[in-house]
């Protein structure tokens, strides 16, 4: 038993003193000639897996675009809410291009780019129940959500003594709502509309907006800068908006960057740390069409 604890302690020391990545991930990607993007499989329409097992979604297409601009092949690694941070920190993935909400505490451990998805939070209730938010902001009602959902913190701001039941999958929360184990379901509008098709649910008004951003390693400025420039360039070109419409069905109701102000001169390609290859002919059409999953 003591041996096991000692081994555990030794491992902890080893990991604490492991050398930080001295070079930027950008250099690593160029040297390795591959961009490894972490992506989740269970968040339609942002990042999910189709019936044949391909990674599809808004985030997947953005990752494909980014890889082409760097000029290297793309590899997807499927991550889960539990594994995404250790995978990033141990260098297994270069960035997590998915639906992670930045918050200050998380920012102590990892870094985030500009937010590129703004999910509108809604309250979903059983048909016939009140859809008035005020009715649910007390300690008698039990709210349900998925664990790690960015809206849970925001709801707690509105209602500090709220009681929550947290599940792993969105559909589990919906079943719990239907069987009256919870009174309200806090989620993003994408998930809400997907499940409302099942019937028996009412979608309440939008009450918050939760951003999602690309997650990168702490203190990796060159990589984070490049990703931010790439996102802004996609916005200037209009590609980001078109992808948004393709997957979500409406124009983005936010403006990328610092309150909508893109950095001046962001289209100028720098001499170093700024790979920006031309896209192959026909790539953009395929990306914005249905066959984008063939572009890996």
């Amino acid at each position: 038993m003591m041996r096991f604890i000692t081994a555990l302690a030794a491992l902890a020391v080893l990991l604490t003193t492991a050398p930080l990545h001295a070079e930027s991930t950008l250099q690593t990607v160029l040297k390795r000639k591959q961009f490894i993007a972490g992506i989740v499989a269970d968040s339609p329409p942002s990042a999910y897996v189709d019936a044949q097992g391909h990674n599809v979604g808004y985030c997947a297409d953005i990752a494909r675009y980014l890889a082409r601009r760097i000029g290297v092949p793309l590899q997807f690694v499927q991550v889960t809410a539990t594994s995404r941070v250790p995978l990033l920190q141990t260098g297994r993935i270069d960035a997590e291009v998915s639906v992670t909400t930045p918050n200050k505490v998380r920012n102590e451990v990892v870094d985030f780019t500009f937010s590129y998805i703004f999910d509108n939070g809604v309250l979903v209730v059983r048909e016939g129940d009140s859809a008035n938010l005020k009715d649910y902001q007390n300690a008698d009602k039990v709210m349900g959500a998925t664990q790690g959902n960015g809206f849970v913190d925001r709801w707690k701001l509105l209602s500090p003594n709220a009681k929550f039941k947290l599940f792993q999958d969105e559909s589990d929360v919906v079943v719990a709502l239907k069987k009256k184990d919870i009174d309200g379901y806090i989620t993003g509008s994408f998930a809400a509309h997907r499940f409302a098709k099942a019937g028996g649910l009412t979608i309440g008004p939008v009450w918050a907006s939760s951003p999602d951003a690309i997650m990168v390693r702490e203190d990796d400025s060159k990589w984070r800068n490049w990703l931010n420039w790439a996102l802004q360039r996609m916005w200037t070109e209009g590609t980001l908006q078109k992808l948004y419409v393709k997957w979500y069905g409406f124009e983005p109701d936010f403006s990328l960057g610092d309150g909508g102000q893109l950095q001046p001169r962001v289209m100028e390609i720098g001499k170093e740390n700024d790979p920006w290859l031309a896209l192959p002919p026909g790539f953009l059409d395929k990306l914005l069409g249905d066959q984008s999953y063939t572009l890996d």
Partner: protein
Amino acid sequence: MSLDWSILWQFRDALLSGLLTTLWISAVGIIGSTLIGVSVGCLATVPSPLLRRITGAYVELLRNLPMIVKLFFLYFIAGLPAVASALLALSLHQSAYIADVTKAGIRSIARGQIDAALSLGHSWTQVFRYVLLPQVLRVVMPPMTTQYVAVVKNSAVVALISVQDLTFETQQINVETFRGFEAATATTVLYILIAMAVIGTMTWLQPLRFDRR
């Protein structure tokens, strides 16, 4: 990557409440599965073809389904409340294995004792209570210990239906602060300590005798 162990101190309340939840759920699971499992195991040794088939089907059905499936079935499909589903799933799951262990234990005791007791006019209930179980319970204590440790480990699954046990709190720390490594280490150590406590208690109980002398 720098580790920040102070996160464990910051979340000590959550971890403590999760630990207590795991402890009492495991305790109820151990008691429940023993009661159900020993009963089924005893029924399995009665020479009635119907009873044999029923107990056989019970054990096969429960053993071939993972704990997660039973939990989901009880909570989402049968609609029981979360804690009840957790306790029931845990008890039923382990009871199948305990039934097998009990059956093997009873088989290992001389058949002659059962025949003698029956021919003296005792009923099956009396045979079980006074002849078999006192001997069997002593014999099966080592395999029971393995089963009880399994109950503790299987209790981690109840986090999936939002029962706030140790595993749930660990995941909560992970999604809030992204400091999953520290939380996972603490949880692993705690689970090992609980397992060791169970093994220690069973070893301490070993010399107990269940028959009145």
